């Protein structure tokens, strides 16, 4: 090896770039491929898509109007009313199909509020630490120690029940939980030297938090978002069930369960069981998708 120009050394053969770039592309494709092949993702995704179609095209799909009291009360499942009718003679199937609409709009909004506020708080706590983190941390701990249903009930009783207040309340209840996750992610991420480098070139805190750190912690935030949707479905239904959520006569699953669950003993199980199953299926579907995401993320 004769005198070697050091400049000849490292800009590598095009091969390396091509290889690396291809690797990266395929790494992304690989993630997608893994996700699409993940059994949880397939099952969860299928159920989720089913309900989304119901929410969008419900009017077309539903055999009858969800409000029409055209039938006899308490027709058992089978026959013209596949899932039977309720006390007022409304078609249960149509109500379950249309009932997906509110929850599929409300649940993501709750999650957006919770994840948005939670991310903001979590970033501030994780980045600035110190007294801010201590103070907010205490508040969050105290908040999480509260009996949530009770406080939500009180809050909604005070604010008055409407879809907006429900969504806001649930979103705010999610905030501390999300903040905790994001804070942990930021704490780990800020140990990276690029954060130090940014400070040394005079960047301010906002820039470092949102332009440097945030793009690197989207993984856990997206997972958190999905998980929150699942919880939101359940919580909204639960609040409706308690009567402080979405108000009748909107065909809401939680509401449907609450209206006639006492009649199960009388043998009219279908009016309660089908919407309950709908809630369960949506919660499970969202969680399956979240699990799959997390699994792929962590590989």
């Amino acid at each position, binding site marked *: *090896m*004769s*005198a*070697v120009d*050091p*400049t*000849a*050394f*490292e*800009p*590598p*053969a095009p*091969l*390396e*770039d091509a*290889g*690396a*770039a291809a*690797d*990266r592309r*395929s790494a992304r494709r*690989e993630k997608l491929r893994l996700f699409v092949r993940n059994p949880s993702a397939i099952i969860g995704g299928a159920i989720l898509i089913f309900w989304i179609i119901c929410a969008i095209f419900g009017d077309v799909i539903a055999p009858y109007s969800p409000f029409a009291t055209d039938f006899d009360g308490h027709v058992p499942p089978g026959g013209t009313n596949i899932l039977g009718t309720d006390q007022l003679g409304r078609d249960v199937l149509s109500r379950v199909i249309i009932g997906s609409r509110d929850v599929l709009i409300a649940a993501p909004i709750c999650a957006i509020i919770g994840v948005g506020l939670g991310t903001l708080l979590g970033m501030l706590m994780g980045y600035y630490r110190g007294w801010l983190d201590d103070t907010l941390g205490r508040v969050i701990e105290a908040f999480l120690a509260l009996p949530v249903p009770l406080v939500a009930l009180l809050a909604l009783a005070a604010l008055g029940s409407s879809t907006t207040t429900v969504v806001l309340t649930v979103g705010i209840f999610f905030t501390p939980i999300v903040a905790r996750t994001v804070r942990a992610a930021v704490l780990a991420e800020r*140990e*990276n*030297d*690029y954060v*130090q*480098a940014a*400070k*040394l*070139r*005079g*960047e301010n805190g906002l820039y470092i938090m949102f332009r*440097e750190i945030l*793009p*690197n912690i989207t993984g856990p935030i997206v997972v958190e978002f999905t998980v929150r949707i699942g919880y939101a479905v359940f919580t909204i239904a639960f609040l409706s069930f308690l009567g402080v959520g979405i108000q009748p006569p909107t065909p809401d699953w939680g509401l449907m369960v609450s209206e006639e669950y006492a009649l199960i003993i009388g043998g009219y199980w279908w009016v309660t069981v089908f919407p309950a199953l709908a809630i369960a299926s949506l919660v499970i579907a969202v969680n399956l998708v979240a699990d799959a995401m997390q699994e792929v993320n962590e590989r």
Partner: protein
Amino acid sequence: MSATEARTAALKVEDLEVAYDVRGVLRPVLRGVSFEIRPGEAYGLVGESGCGKSTTAYAAVRYLPGNGHITAGRALIGGDDVTAMGAEDLRALRASRISMVYQDPGQSLNPTIKVGKQVAEAFAVLGASKEEARERAIEALRRVRIADAERVMERYPYQLSGGMQQRAVIAMALACDPQLLILDEPTTGLDATVEAEVLDLVANLRDETGAAILLIAHNLGVVRRTCDRVGIMYAGRIVEEGIAGEVFDDPQHPYTVGLLRCLPRRGAAKSERRLDTIPGSLPLIGTPLPACVFEDRCALASAECRTALPTASHPRPDRTVFCHHVDRVAELVAAPVTAAAGEVAPGEVVLQLEDVSKTFRQGGHEVRALVGVDLELRAGETLGLVGESGSGKTTLAKAILGIHAADQGGVIRLDGETLAGLTTQRSADARRAIQIIFQNPDSALNRSKTVRSILSRALSKLAGLSGQAADDRLEKIREEVVLSPRHLDLKPRQLSGGLKQRVAIGNAFAGDPRIVVCDEPTSALDVSVQAAILNLLADLQRDEQASYIVISHDLGVVRYLSDRIAVLYLGRLMEVGDAATVFAGPHHPYTEALLSAVPSVDGDPPARIRLEGEVPSAIDVPSGCVFHTRCPRAIQGTCEASEPPLVEVEAGHMMRCHIPIDELRRLQATDAG
């Protein structure tokens, strides 16, 4: 190979080929590896990252990851073919005859279980009763030179230092009295002096137990000190094999020759010569390779190298080289001796530290990480900072950068102007004047950004440039750090380690800094890449007239880049002087111990000083000379009573020791002779 020979070898690997299944495609990683370790012998496997060292070790005990497959060849342990073994025999073999120690002791120890319980467990699985296991665990900890074994048993892993943890892991590995101990980078995360201790331990244990050792390490000094024989690996093949010291002093394969010339050795300094590099880069996994795997980077390559597998030749006794042109290695000429940087004419003082201290508060205690440091840095000069971990190197660098503020009372001046403690309180000019190149580019570069956006942001914030001016300057920086235009649109993880470090260097130089702190700038890089980066740093310094503060545990690197050296111990300067003087001696007793503890490719000095024990805690500093608890030359009655001042013992050479310099000179000359 006779049957008896096969039976006696502790490990015999024959034409081993291993491939990893990557998305359904089998990618060959080992391309026919053969070597043999005799009982009681220590064998080193050396090579750059990704050449297949770990794969070899794992394949030899059938511990490959799920997607790894042995596609040809065999591995015999004590004569038994591991590749043909059933699951039951394999388990028995692993339990009783071999042990492995991995790089990160944290990985082998469960953080939630007390150390004693974990060590005892290693004996319990061998069938010892609970009482017996405990006794033997204490004994095992003593055997790995843990003095206070009973108390250590009661601690959790995190309560032990890295060196202690690694000893505990070795104690567990020795539980079954293995015939073969495999150590994969056992000392990589450890401090140089702790590393030396662990290596001594391994050497002693080998004498005591007669176990054969397979040591994987990228630090050639470590291998030279510990191993009898060494195999040099490149792209899944062993290209040269022989007695460790002989191979490092007189390499015969073109790759080994190139690799060793990349190292700053034997006191090389940037003012004397550039470092050699090996042109081209390591082959990527899965690329088809010519018959000789080194062909595309070899200056001697000829047509037959592409097509015919090189066969073993023996240019020296006890040496095996796989190369068609062994007889021509002498033709491989080193780069002509061109200085990478001229002698610096001492410029103006750029940075001045007066009585700089840094005290941390930790659980009600004061941790004095830095105590009364006085230093000067001149324009264009490089100051090397050396000392064990915990000596305050990084604390000092951070105080200079303003990452944390030094204590009240001390002064840091830039061009005569006092600097505010924190970077956020400093002027934009002061900020751009002092920048840093971090150790690990993976951490220093934001992985979500492209090279272009990383560099552009640095230009706009540090140089205040935008638009065309910024583009022009970006282009200039790109050329300076020798990146090609297409690299600009890639993200860090699409680049190799060396390229990433170039981006990090470009980032630091964006605002024409006066002072650049280089914190272990090459320790995350392979040897051949390190050489290119060191050359680049020397070039940039010459062209930009920047001053460097270099921190590295690799004394070869420090020696190569530095004009002056400052030695720190427990936050105090122990010695400051010209690099040549500090390395030549007479040394401060601590410097002397440090130089002698660190394993070198060039071999050890005839009389090696062992620096025993760990650096005392900065909460509870020893009285008098803080080094007296470990100092081999301590004077009873004097050293523990009063702390010596830092005084100029000869022109430009400061030392903090009670022993006069002439006495030190005499003592050190006698010991060396």
